[in-house]
C-alpha cells in the first residue's frame, strides 16, 4: 500500500533564489528546494543531507548541468547529485531522496509522508 502523503506548503516564491537552492524544514526533515528559471520544470526538491558527510548542506551547493542532466554539487566534497533522480554521478550506488514539488499560487508545496496527527489536521 502506498503510504499516505500530503502536500506541505514550505515557502513562497519570494524565498527562492534563482539558479540556486534554499533549505526548508519538513516533517521528514531538512529538504533542499532549487529554482532553475532557465529550465522546464524549474523546481526541484531533494534531501538537504549530503550522504557523504552527513551534514545538511546540499541547498548550498552550486547548480548546473552535466551532459544535460540538472545537478547540484555538494559544497563539502563536490560530488554531483542529479536533481531529477537524486543519483550521485560519481557513485551510482548512492542516491539522495527526491520530493515531488509544485507551485500553488504563491506557495511552494512538497509531497511528504503524512503522519497521523498532521493528516487529520490537514
Amino acid at each position: 500500500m502506498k503510504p499516505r502523503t500530503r502536500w506541505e506548503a514550505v515557502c513562497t516564491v519570494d524565498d527562492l533564489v534563482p539558479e540556486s537552492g534554499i533549505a526548508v524544514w519538513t516533517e521528514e526533515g531538512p529538504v533542499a528546494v532549487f529554482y532553475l528559471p532557465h529550465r522546464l520544470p524549474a523546481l526541484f526538491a531533494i534531501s538537504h543531507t549530503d550522504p557523504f558527510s552527513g551534514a545538511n548542506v546540499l541547498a548550498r551547493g552550486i547548480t548546473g548541468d552535466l551532459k544535460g542532466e540538472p545537478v547540484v554539487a555538494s559544497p563539502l566534497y563536490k560530488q554531483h547529485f542529479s536533481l531529477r533522480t537524486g543519483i550521485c554521478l560519481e557513485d551510482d550506488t548512492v542516491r539522495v531522496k527526491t520530493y515531488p514539488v509544485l507551485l500553488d499560487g504563491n506557495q511552494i508545496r512538497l509531497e511528504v509522508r503524512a503522519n497521523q496527527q498532521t493528516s487529520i489536521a490537514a
Partner: protein
Amino acid sequence: MSKKTLIVIGNGMVGHHFLEQFCASPAAADFEIIVFGEEKQLAYDRVHLSEYFGGSTHADLAMGTLEWYTEQGIQLHLNEQVTGINRENRTLETPRGSYRYDELVLATGSYPFVPPIEGNDRPHCLVYRTLDDLDAIRASSEGARAGVVVGGGLLGLEAANALKSLGLEAHVVEFAPRLMPVQLDADGGALLRHKIEELGVQVHTEKATTAITEGEDARLRMDFSDESFLETDLIVFSAGIRPQDALARASGLEIGERGGIVINNHCTTSDPHVHAIGECALWEQKIFGLVAPGYTMARTLSAALNGDRELAFTGADMSTKLKLLGVDVGSIGDAHAQTPGARNIRFNDEQAGHYRRMVISEDGKTLLGAILVGDNSHYDTLLQYALNGITLPENPETLILPESQGGAPALGPDALPETASICSCHNVTKGDICGAIDAGCSDLGSVKAETKASTGCGGCTALLKNVVDSELEKRGVEVSKDLCEHFPYSRQELFHIVKVNGIRTFHTLISQHGKGHGCDICKPAVASILATCWNEHILATDHVPLQDTNDTFMANMQKNGTYSIVPRIPGGEITPDKLIVLGEVAKEYDLYTKITGGQRVDLFGATLSQLPEIWEKLIAAGFETGHAYGKSLRTVKSCVGNTWCRYGVQDSVGMAIRLEDRYKGLRAPHKVKMAVSGCTRECAEAQSKDFGVIATENGWNLYVCGNGGMRPRHADLFATDLSDEELIRTIDRVVMFYVRTADRLQRTSVWMENLEGGLEYLKQVVLEDSLGIGAELEEHMEGIVGTYQCEWKTAVEDPEKRKRFREFVNAPSQTDPVQEWTVERGQRRPVLESA
C-alpha cells in the same frame, strides 16, 4: 610435494620490500617463509627515522602491519638475533632454537661505525640508526646542555638537527677539512658550513678525536689531536656505516676486502642457496647505502627465485638531493671529477648563498656529475643530462647560471630521450608514456591509469603533464584547454571575452559564448573573472548562484555544515580592545577559537543564521572581512620590524598593513599570500609566499611566486632595493598580470613556470614594460583599490541579502539536528562520525 623453506634474516626496509615482492609472486606458494629480526619492532621506514623526534611513532613509520604478515602466512620472529649459519646442513641458530632452510636471504643491513677512540664505550656515547638508538639519545638528553655529533656526513648533519630539536646546543666534529666530504667539494662544503652555522649548529672541521674522558663542566670531555678539547654531555657517532656481514663471514661466504657480502647480478652469494640484498651486499666492489638500490636488489632476487633471470641488478645511480637543516644540497654522479680528463665549471654566488659545479667530459659534450648547495632548482635538469648522456648545449655554463645572466631554462619535454625516467616511484620512462599514447591513451588521466606514473609521491605530476601534452600535440591531438563542457575556452580567453565585450553576467556570457547551464567548475571561474573586471559585490543577485558556498556565505564551511569566521587583522597587528571583542563574541556564540598560520584568529562553529549577527558585532568593533573564504589576498604576514626589533632596518609592520589594505578583496585565480620581513633574518618567512618582501638598508627586495602548502616552492628574487612606491608599483603590475593571464586555480608559482620565458619574461614585462601594458595594469589596479567595499558590511546592512542566511527559510527557530557537539580542552568541537 611438501613446501620448501625460505628464511629471511633481517626485517629492515629492504627485507620487508623483498617479502612484499615475493609474496605477490607465484613462487610464494612453494615456500614456508620464516623471518628473523633483531630489532623488537616490525620493519619501519629508516629513511624518515628523524621524524621520530618530531612526534612520529613506530606505527607512523612502520612499513607493514602484523596482520599482513599473518595473512601471508609468514612466521615472524622479532627480537630474535640469528647467531650462526651452518651452510652444510642448511640450518641456522638463534638463542631460541635451530631452523632448517632451503633458500636463505641475508638482509642484515649495516651498523654504525664507531671509531676506535679510547673511552668510546662510556655512558652517553651513542649511535643513530634504530628506534632504540633514538630512545637512548632522548633519555641521555634529559638534563643535558650540549651534544656532539662525530662525523659531518649526511647522517651526521641529520643527527645534529635532531640534537637541536631536543633543545641541545649542537656541535659537529668532522675529521676531514669540510662537511659532507663524500658528496661535496671544498667550496660547496664551505658554503654548507656557513649556512649550517647560521642555523646555530657549531662546526669543527679537521678535528681528530684522541680520547674521551670525564668532563669537568659537562659529562664528557673530548680531546683532539691538536691539543684542543670540547666538553659535552653526550656524543653521537656518525662516522659512516659498515655492512653487517658478521654471520656471512663466520659461515665462510665470500666477503669483500673492506667488508660486504659478495653477490652476483642476481643477488646470489658464493653459495647458490644463500642470497644477500640491501646494505649488507657488495656488488662489483660497491656497497649501496641508499634504499632505492636495495629495493631494486629485492625485486631482482624475487624474480630470480621465480626462475626469471632476465631481470639483473646492474648497479644504481647514487645521486642525491635533499634538504639538510633546511639547506638544499644536491650531488650527482661523478661529483669529484675523478673521470680522467674531466673538467669543471663552477658558479659561486656568496651573496645569495648558491654554489653550483658541473663536471663535464673532456670533449665537453656530456655531463658527468654535479654539486649543488643552497638551491636545488637545477637538480632535475642536470640529472636528466647526466643519466641520459644528453649532449650538452654549446655553452654548458648556461645550465647553472641564474637565468638573469643568460642561464638556460629547464629542459623541455622534447629534449628528453625515450629512456629518461619520468616517474621514479613507478619506474616509468618517457618511452613507456609514448607507448601508452600509441596504444590509445588520449589524455593525462588514461596515461596515469595505464602506466601508474604520478600515482606515488606525486612529485612528477608537472613533468608528466608536460610530456603527455607535448607527445599528444606531436601526434596532432589537440590538447584541450577548455574550462569545462560549457565553455570551449581557457580562463584567460574567457577573461578577454568578458573584458572586450563588457559582459557583466554569467547568463549573458554562457548564452553568447557557451552552451548549457554551467556547472561548479565554470560558474566560480566566471564569477572570479567578473569580480576582477567589474568588482561588484559578490552577493549582487546575478552573482550569488555562481559562487562556491564559502564565497556565497563569506565564511569557510566546515565538515559539519557550520562555518568559520576570520576577520582581517592587517599585518597581524591588533589592539587589546579589538582582541577583547573577538574573545567576547567567541564566548557569546561558543565558537572554537584558534590562531591561524596567517597571524589572525579563526572562530569556528557558527551556524548560517548566526553569521550576520556575529558580523554586525565585529563590524561595530571596527573589523572587516578577512576573505579567508575567497580566491583572493589572504594575509600579509609580518615580523615586528625596526619599531621594536634590534635587527630591523625597515618598518615591516607598516609596509605589511599598507600592502594588505591595498590588495584586500582583490579576486584572483587562486589565493594569494604575502609577507614582509624587517631584515634579512626573514622572520616572516616571506620567501614562501606569492609575494615576499624583505627589508634592506636601502629599501625592499621583492621575491615572487613562492608558496607553502603541499608542494612548497621558494620565491624568486625579482627586484632589489626598491623604494616604497616602486615596490607597490611593481607588485601592482605582477598581481594584475597574474590575474589577467593565469588559468583557473593556478597559483602564481605554476603560472610563472608556465609562462613562456618564465621569470625572465615576467621581469621584462613588469620591470622593462616590454609589452607596453605597465600603465594599463597599474590603472586597472587603482580602479579596484578605489571600489573596495567590505562585503560583510554591505551584506549585514541589506535586508534582502540577509535573507540568504536563513538556515531553514520556513523555520527560524529550528536548529540543525546533525550538529552535535562535545567539549575538548575547554572548547566546543563537533562530534566526529559516530561509529
